[in-house]
């Protein structure tokens, strides 16, 4: 896919780069301030996030890098409404996630978030189409499952069960399932962690594609630094803090990635 074709999409986050003389920055999709997460187990206290501040803007593709235990999964879980912060504030658009109860968090995930997991987590008893339909049946404005699968290049494998699909195909079904509801945010936790290089690249290309075509703000967690090139913005985490954050001058396509 030629990157120039979707330049207009990526122009928006680029335009939001803070400058004193530009137009006022648009409200971010996510806004986190002073986010702290402490896991307590007996006397043991683990500070997974320490006073973290961050934003995510509409349509942006953000790659979150960090070693194991750096806090990136904790951050993703809080953004995705799976976990709550110990202190600090995190807002999604005009919703305060920190004040939501379990029921509201479920509704939030249902309406706004698409998840892609490292191990796909497809329902083995459902075909590819049905796995997607599972989500579109409860979504407010979904695409047709067939369209979502066509988008990830699986138009001809729709009636296959997970056990009949390769790992990469399963992950692309998972992506189709995540995007079929037209989520505002797509959260991918190590989406290539269980895949070989070639298949991983195909999956990343799919994520890149849906980000560009659907404009969903996308966060990809990885410990694979090579993936950073496809991002609009790259955030490094170390010990529960953002240790580095930079914007790529231009996103490179997934095919060009190598590791």
């Amino acid at each position, binding site marked *: 896919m030629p990157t120039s074709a979707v330049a207009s999409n990526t122009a928006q986050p680029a335009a939001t780069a803070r400058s004193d003389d530009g137009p006022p920055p648009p409200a971010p999709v996510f806004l986190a301030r002073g986010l702290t997460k402490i896991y307590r187990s007996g006397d043991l206290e683990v500070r997974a996030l320490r006073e973290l501040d961050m934003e995510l803007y509409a349509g942006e593709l953000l790659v979150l890098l960090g070693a194991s235990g750096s806090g990136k999964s904790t951050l993703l879980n809080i953004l995705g409404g*799976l976990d709550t912060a110990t202190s600090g504030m995190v807002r999604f658009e005009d919703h305060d996630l920190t004040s939501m109860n379990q029921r509201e968090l479920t509704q939030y995930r249902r309406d706004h978030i698409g998840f892609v997991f490292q191990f796909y987590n497809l329902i083995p*008893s459902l075909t590819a189409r049905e796995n997607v339909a599972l989500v579109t049946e409860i979504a407010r404005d979904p695409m047709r499952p067939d369209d979502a699968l066509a988008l990830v290049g699986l138009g001809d494998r729709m*009636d296959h069960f997970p056990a009949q699909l390769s790992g990469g195909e399963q992950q692309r079904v998972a992506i189709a399932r995540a995007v079929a509801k037209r989520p505002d945010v797509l959260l991918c936790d190590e989406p290539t962690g269980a895949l070989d290089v070639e298949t991983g690249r195909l999956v990343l290309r799919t994520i890149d594609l849906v980000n560009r075509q659907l404009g969903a703000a996308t966060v990809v967690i990885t410990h694979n630094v090579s993936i950073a090139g496809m991002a609009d913005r790259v955030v490094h985490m170390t010990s529960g803090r953002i240790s580095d954050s930079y914007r790529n001058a231009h996103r490179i396509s997934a095919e060009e990635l190598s590791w």
Partner: protein
Amino acid sequence: MSALTSKLRRDLWRIRAQVFSIAAVMAGGVMTVVALGGTSSSLDSATREYYLSGHFADVFATLTRAPDAVAVRLAAIPGVNSVATRVVKDVRLDVPGLDMPAIGRMVSLPLPGSGGVPLNAVHITSGRAVLPGADKEILVSGRFAEANGLRPGSLLTAIINERYVELRIVGIGAAPDYLYEEPGNAFPSDARGFGILWVPHELAAAATGMRGAFNDVSIGLAAGARPSEVIAAVDTLLAPYGGRGAIGRKDQLSDRVVSNELTQLGVMAFAFPAVFVAVAAFLVGSVVSRLIATEREQIAVLKAFGYTSGAVGLHYLAYAAAAAAVGIPLGIGVGVWVGRLYTGIYSDVLRIPGLQFHADWVTIGRAIIVIFLAALSGALSAVRKVAILPPAEALQPPAPARYRALPFDTIGRRLTLSTPVRMIIRGLERQPRRALLGAMGVAAALAMMAGALSLYDATDNMIGLQFRVGQRQALSVQLVTAVPASTRPVFSSLPGVTNVELVRVVPVRLRHMGRSRTVGLTALERDGKMHRLVDVDGQIHAIPPAGIVLSTKVAGILAIHTGDTLDMDLLERGTTRRVVVTALLNELMSPNAYMDLTAAGSLVGDGNLINGAYLRLDSPPRPELFEQLRAMPLVGGVTSRTAMVAQFDRMMAKSFRISAVVVVLFASIIALGVVYNGARIALSERGRELASLRVLGFTNREVGVMLLGEEAILTIAAIPIGWVLGRAFAAYLTYGFTSENYQVPIVTRAATYAFATAVVLSASALAGALMYRRSTRLDLVAVLKTRE
């Protein structure tokens, strides 16, 4: 403690709810074996011991009258070991505190120093024996004494030879031939209205004019003697003396009741444990299988480190053994408790000295073996998989669950089922055997409850047919002698009496083609409304104007059909008549023979005589009615059908309460155990899948539906199966209650089945609720990072 033992200990604690639910089902099995088997063996051994110590006779005969010298000839019959002659006669009693005249069966005690084997010896449970020479001292039977509040020292008035005689009760007794205190004639009795009186020989002989004679004989057989040969010889010998036909133990009323009870207990002691054992085996199998599936990698590691297949297999068998180890003592405890309650009911009805519930070691041992076999058979196939699992393969994750499009999908697509529903149906289709067994487990709970409770419906129906449809008199009056039917106004003029029907009961022996049967021929008024001929289906049959109506059972014994002619020996007159069988009656309680009263009078040839009357009253009986009946020397006794039915109902209600509590409790345990474990296993297998759905935005409720949908469908599918099995179970149980004299039609009452269904559904719903709560606590974060 070995490492494996530590693992076992901790894992057992982790899955304690499942282990306990299995243990509870096992406890149910042990409970039924101990309670029913223990009651049965207690009843059996107490009866045997008492038969031995009380010298229960082997052959019994009643006759009109024979001189004492005949006893010597009876003793000379080959195979006869001992002979005891008695005088037996029903007399009218006035019991203090009882307004109704009661019937006392006067049984003569042996003459002091008469020697020989004291057949049917009276055992004194309280008070003392009758002193030699004290001719007004008597012993009375326990049930009668208790019902009337009689104790040693109480006085009774008997009408003997038309004179009021005051008798002093000196002791309460029991005898092996009257464990069951019922008159055994056509008149129903209640506990207050009928009792056994053991009286000094002199008194009985004087009362009946039988000095130097007897009308009842008991015979003890020598070892190896054949009862049938002795019976034939006795019949021949007693024929000239109005012998009514000798019978062996199996036809003796009291023994027959005891053996019927033992047969019933035997049937139940097999049927109930079988249900529990089957369910326990299924639960053990499914839980251990699941455990092994989740621990494949651990098993592989153990094997890789050199543990033998046997050691690992034993480790998993130990889970089943642990459930058994909890269930067995629990079951024994509850079983002993329930057994005591059941035995208590039996000892109200059957007066067997020394009858106490004791769970003998054989019964307990049998229960333990049965449950261990259930546990083993359930776990064995799962554990076998452990043994044959090669370590290298076990280290690999199991092949992903393979689903394929199933026949249902074609239909499903047309029905446009929602995706969650499709998931539920595919889950069922994928494991049809497990689904079927699960449904059968729930069905078994329902069937057990419906079947057991139906037994009470059947009994209730039987009593209803017999005493609400068939016999509807308020009071039955037995006369001491036959009188002309013209006596009717004597009864119709009694206070409160609105209707009178006359009856005559004639002891006869029916003979046909070399077969014979002694019965009481009941002669009734043809257009009578109180005592009607009713068949098992509740149909009323008219009495034909001529000929005899036989119970189908009697007809079977005599190999006779409608239209055939039989010989009828009139046992009180020593003559024979020929009579045509005009109809057969398939009735609940047999054997019986019926005739029209007038036809019977002409056949017997003594005019229109009666020896009983049925009375219908305008209100509950008034004291002056009983006063007048008591003042009539003609009246031998009065029994209240209402009192009898009430007494029976009370006894059934007591038994029902115990059984209902026990059966509801254990059926709930079964349903709960099956559904809980089914859902628990589903949660364990699909926890990750369900957590993923929660992450994707499905609510707890939606995920709950997907988790519990399978169990809900299985439970609902189980209900009609449970109804069918329940009916079969009831049929099997009532089969145990059917005897030569008794048949118990199965009754299917909607209310009972609805109740059983409601209990099973509630238990299943409770299990579902427990599992739903657990499903709401799924760890959503963990599923993102774990591989299946």
